[in-house]
C-alpha cells in the first residue's frame, strides 16, 4: 500500500501537526527547512552513517533466542539487539542524528527531556563528543527511580534539572524543556527523545531510528531466510517501535504490534496506554491519542517502566492504529517483570523494563503460533538502569 506520511504540514491523517506557542513556530520552520535540505545530502548522510557505525556500533545483531523459543514452545523468537548500542539503547540513533542537525544549524547548546534517562544519557553523550552544552530535564520522581542514569549524565558533563511541577514525570519534563526552548531559541537545539512533539520531530526522530528496520530488511532474509511474520516493539512515545516498523509499513505480510504499558491494568486508572485506552487530543505540540479526564486535563499515568510512563504517543502510531496497519496491545507491570526475569535467566540478557513489555507480549503470541513462524522483538535497551527499581519492588536490598 502507498504510504507517504507525514504530509507537508506534518499530518499523519488527522494526527500530528504543530500545536505550539507562536514563539516556536519559526524555529520549527527553520528546523524543517534544515532537515529537508540535509536529509538527502550525501555529506550529511555519510557523517551520520560513520557515527552510527563507528560510534554507536551499528549494525546491531539480530539474535535467535533459541532457549527462549524452546521454553515458550511456539514461534521462533528473534531479538534485535538495540541494547548493544553505545549507551545501551536505541535512543542513541536519534540523538546522533539530531546533534548533527544542531551542529549544522550552528547551535551551541542542546536541551533534552528524559523519562528513564536513556535519552538523557544519549543526549549528554553526544553533547560531550561534540563539545556542546547540555541541559536535561527530568521529572523529580524519575530522578529518584533512575539514579544510575542521572549520575551517568552528570559524569558526561550535563546539567540535570529535576522537574517538580505537575506529576514530576516525563510529561512535566517535556513541558519544562519546551519552556526552556521558548526562552533560549537563539542558541539552543531541542533534542526530542521520541516520535512525538510538533512537526518535524515525529518525522525526523522516526527517520533516524528507521535504521533499525532497514537493518532488519537485510538481516531477516540472511538469518531467517525470509521476512518475519510479526514485529513486536514496546510503545511509550513510540520511537523504537516506529524505527522498527517504518521500513515494513508497505509490506503487508509483516504484522506490526506495538505494546503499551498496561501498569496495573487498562481497566484501572493506573496505566500508560493511550492507544489502548485513551482518546484523541492535543498535547505537547501534536494531535494524537492521549490519556485525559472528562474535562480534558491530562491524566496521571503509571508504569513500572519510567520510559513508558507517558500519557501521549507519537502521532504516526495513532495513524497506524486507526488505519489498521499496526495493532496495539497493553501488557501489565507484572507480566513485563516476569518476562524480564525469563530473558535474563534463559538467555543471559538483562533487558530494560520497556522492551520487557514487548517480550511479554511476544510470549503470548508465540504460544499461539507454530514453530514455522518468526517473531522479531525490538530489544530496545539494556536493563542496568532498572535493577534498582526491580530490586525495590521485589523487596531486595542492594546496600
Amino acid at each position, binding site marked *: 500500500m502507498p504510504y507517504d506520511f507525514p504530509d507537508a504540514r506534518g499530518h499523519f491523517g488527522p494526527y500530528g501537526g504543530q500545536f*505550539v506557542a507562536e514563539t516556536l*513556530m519559526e524555529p520549527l520552520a527553520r528546523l524543517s527547512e534544515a532537515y529537508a535540505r540535509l536529509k538527502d545530502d550525501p555529506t550529511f548522510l555519510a557523517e551520520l552513517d560513520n557515527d552510527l557505525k563507528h560510534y554507536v556500533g551499528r549494525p546491531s545483531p539480530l539474535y535467535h533466542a533459541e532457549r527462549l523459543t524452546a521454553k515458550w514452545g511456539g514461534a521462533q523468537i528473534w531479538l534485535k539487539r538495540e541494547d548493544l548500542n553505545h549507551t545501551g539503547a536505541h535512543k542513541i540513533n536519534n540523538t546522533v542524528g539530531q546533534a548533527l542537525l544542531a551542529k549544522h544549524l550552528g547551535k551551541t547548546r542542546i536541551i533534552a527531556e528524559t523519562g528513564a534517562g536513556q535519552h538523557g544519557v544519549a543526549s549528554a553523550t553526544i553533547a560531550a563528543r561534540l563539545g556542546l552544552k547540555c541541559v536535561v530535564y527530568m521529572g523529580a520522581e524519575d530522578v529518584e527511580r533512575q539514579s544510575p542514569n542521572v549520575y551517568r549524565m552528570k559524569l558526561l558533563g550535563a546539567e540535570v534539572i529535576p522537574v517538580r511541577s505537575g506529576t514530576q514525570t516525563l510529561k512535566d519534563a517535556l*513541558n519544562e524543556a519546551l519552556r526552556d526552548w521558548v526562552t533560549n531559541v537563539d542558541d539552543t537545539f531541542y533534542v526530542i527523545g521520541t516520535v512525538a512533539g510538533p512537526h518535524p520531530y515525529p518525522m525526523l526522530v522516526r527517520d533516524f531510528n528507521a535504521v533499525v528496520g532497514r537493518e532488519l530488511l537485510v538481516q531477516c532474509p540472511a538469518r531467517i531466510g525470509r521476512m518475519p511474520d510479526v514485529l513486536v516493539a514496546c510503545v511509550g512515545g513510540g520511537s523504537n517501535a516506529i524505527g522498527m516498523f517504518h521500513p515494513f509499513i508497505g509490506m503487508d505480510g509483516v504484522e506490526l504490534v506495538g505494546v503499551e504499558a498496561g501498569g496495573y491494568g487498562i481497566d484501572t486508572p493506573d496505566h500508560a496506554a493511550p492507544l489502548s485506552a485513551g482518546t484523541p487530543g492535543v498535547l505537547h505540540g501534536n494531535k494524537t491519542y492521549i490519556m485525559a479526564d472528562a474535562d480534558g486535563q491530562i491524566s496521571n499515568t503509571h508504569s513500572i517502566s519510567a520510559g513508558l510512563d507517558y500519557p501521549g504517543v507519537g502521532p504516526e502510531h495513532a495513524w497506524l492504529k486507526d488505519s489498521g496497519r499496526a495493532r496495539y496491545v497493553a501488557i501489565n507491570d507484572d507480566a513485563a517483570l516476569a518476562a524480564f526475569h525469563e530473558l535474563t535467566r534463559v538467555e543471559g540478557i538483562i533487558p530494560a523494563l520497556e522492551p520487557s513489555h514487548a517480550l511479554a507480549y511476544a510470549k503470548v503470541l508465540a504460544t499461539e503460533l507454530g514453530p514455522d513462524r518468526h517473531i522479531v522483538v525490538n530489544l530496545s535497551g539494556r536493563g542496568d538502569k532498572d535493577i534498582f527499581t526491580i530490586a525495590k519492588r521485589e523487596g531486595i536490598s542492594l546496600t
Partner: protein
Amino acid sequence: MSTQSSASGRLNATFARLRADGRKALIPYITAGDPHPGHSVALMHALVAGGADIIELGMPFSDPMADGPVIQLACERALKAGTTLRRTLALVSEFRQTDAQTPVVLMGYLNPIERFGLADFADAADHAGVDGVLIVDLAVEEADAYLPTLTARGLAPIFLVSPTTPIARVATIAEHAAGYLYYVSLKGVTGAANLDVDAVATQVAALRGVTQIPVAVGFGIRSPETAAAVARVADGVVVGSTLVNQIAEGVDQPDGLPAQLTATLAALRRAMDAG
C-alpha cells in the same frame, strides 16, 4: 470579513472608545477558579474597579507549556479547587449579570476545548458572554479547522505574535485574527524577566506596517513604569503573572484579594493614563 467584524463587537467598541479618549487598554489576566471558583467573579469585578478595559480569563490546564511557574501553580490551585471549563464559562455568565460592557477573553490550551467539543464550547462561550478566545497552542496553520466555528458564534480569535515571528507571517496571522493581536514582548514564558521597551517599540511599529488590528503587549510587564512605557507604543498592556502572584500570596486570606488587585491595577492605570 463579516463574520469577524461581528465576532469582535464588544472588543472593537472598547478599542474605539479608548482611541477616542486618547487612552490605552489595560488588560489584566487571572486564572479562572484561582484560588477557588467562588472567588473569581469578585476578582473580575475588582479588576474592572481598578481600571481594567478587557479581562483575560485563563482556562486552567494541567500542562500549560507556554506559561511559567506562576501560572502553572495557578492552574494547579484552580484544578484542585474543582474548576472545569464548564465552571469557567459559568463564571463568565455570572460576571455578565452585572457587567455588560467589559470584554472577556478566554485564554488557554486546546485539549480541554477539544474534549468539551469545539461547537459546544463555542455555543456555551457565546451564551456566557465571552468575546474572544486565545488558544495558546493553536498556531494559525492549524486554525482552519477551528476558527469558523468560533467566529460564527461571534467569538474573536485572538492570536499571539512573538519576537521570532517573521513579518510576512504576522500578516497571515492578522488575516485570521480579530479583536487585537497579542504581542509577546520577549522570548520566554509568562512571568519571565522584564522586557526591553525600546525593542518592543520597534517591533510594534513593524506590526503596524502590516495590520490595522490593535496591538496589545504582554509578558514581562509588572511595574507601573513599564506599563506606562509600553502604553506609549502599543494599544494595550497585558498584565498577568504579577496579579497571579498576588493571588498566590493571598491564598490564605482570599477575602482581601479583591481590594489588593484593584489597588495594583489602579496604580498601573494611573501610570498609563499619565502617559
